[in-house]
C-alpha cells in the first residue's frame, strides 16, 4: 500500500523520530502519485489543445480563435492568464513529484541537505499551487467584471 515502504530503524537515532519519518514516507508516496498522474493528465490536456488548434480535435481551432479575437483586449488577458495557470500547474505537479521523491529518500536515510532540498521543493510546490488557484479566481473575477461592465443593460432586461 502507498506510504508503507520499509522503515530504517537506525534513522531515529540520527534525528527525526519514527513517527515523523513514517509521516514523511506516507506524504512522499502520495505526493509522487499526485505528481505523476497530474503530469500525465496535463500532458493529455495540452495534447488535446494542440490537436484542436491544428483542427484535428472535435473543436474547430479557427472558429475558436475567431470568437476570442472578437473579444479584443480581453483575449490577450485571458490567454496570458490561462497560459500562466497551465505553466504553474505543471510546476506544481513537478515540484510535488520532486518533494515526494525527496521525502521518501529522507524517510529512509536522513541528511541535512536532503531535508533542505525537500523543504525547498515543498514550499515551491505550495507557491505554485497558490498562484494557479489564485490565477483561476482572477480569471473568473475578470470575466465576471468584464461582462458585468459591458453587458449591464442585459441584466436589467433579465429582471
Amino acid at each position: 500500500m502507498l506510504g508503507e515502504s520499509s522503515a530504517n530503524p537506525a534513522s531515529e537515532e540520527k534525528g527525526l523520530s519514527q513517527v515523523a519519518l513514517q509521516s514523511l514516507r506516507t506524504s512522499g508516496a502520495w505526493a509522487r502519485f499526485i505528481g505523476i498522474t497530474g503530469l500525465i493528465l496535463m500532458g493529455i490536456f495540452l495534447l488535446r489543445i494542440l490537436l484542436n488548434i491544428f483542427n484535428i480535435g472535435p473543436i474547430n481551432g479557427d472558429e475558436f480563435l475567431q470568437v476570442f479575437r472578437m473579444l479584443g483586449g480581453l483575449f490577450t488577458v485571458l490567454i496570458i492568464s490561462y497560459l500562466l495557470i497551465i505553466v504553474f500547474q505543471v510546476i506544481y505537479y513537478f515540484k510535488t513529484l520532486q518533494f515526494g521523491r525527496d521525502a521518501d529518500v529522507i524517510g529512509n536515510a536522513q541528511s541535512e541537505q536532503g531535508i533542505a532540498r525537500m523543504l525547498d521543493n515543498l514550499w515551491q510546490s505550495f507557491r505554485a499551487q497558490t498562484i494557479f488557484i489564485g490565477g483561476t479566481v482572477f480569471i473568473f473575477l475578470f470575466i465576471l467584471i468584464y461582462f458585468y461592465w459591458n453587458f449591464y443593460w442585459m441584466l436589467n432586461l433579465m429582471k
Partner: protein
Amino acid sequence: MLENYDSGPMDAPMEESQTALGHANLQRLVLVSKWARWAGIAILGFWGVIFLLVAYIALRFGLPLSDIFSSIDSPQAWLLLLFYFGLFVVSIILASKLIQFANKAHQAAQIASKQQLEFALEELATYFKILGISFAVLIAYSLLSFVIDKLT
C-alpha cells in the same frame, strides 16, 4: 538565497537541534508554512468568490430552489451534483488541513519543538493522503463518464 541553496551529498551529517533541523532548514520550514497557509487561503478564496456570486444572484434575481431541483431529474444530473458537492467538501477539508499544517509547522520552527514538527508532518501526510485519494476518485469518475458517454 534559499532557492539557490547548494544541495550537497545526501549522506551529509545532521546538525544537532531539538527539531533535528538546522537553522537554515528551520527558516525553510517557516517559508513552507507561509506558502501552505496561502495555498489554503487561495482554496477558501475560490469558494468564497463562488458563494459571493451565488449570494449576489440570489439577492438580485432571486434563487428559485424548487425550479433548480426540479430540473435535476436524471441520475446523471444527480451524480454531477454529488460530484460538485464532494469537490466542495474535499477542497474545504484540504484547505483546513493546509492551514493546520502551516500553523503547526510555523510553531515547530518558532519554538524548535520536535513534537510539534511530528504533528505538522502528520497533518501533511493526511493532506497528501486525502488529496491523493480524491485525485484517484476524480480520475475514476472521468474514466467512467467517458466510457458511459462512448457506450450510450
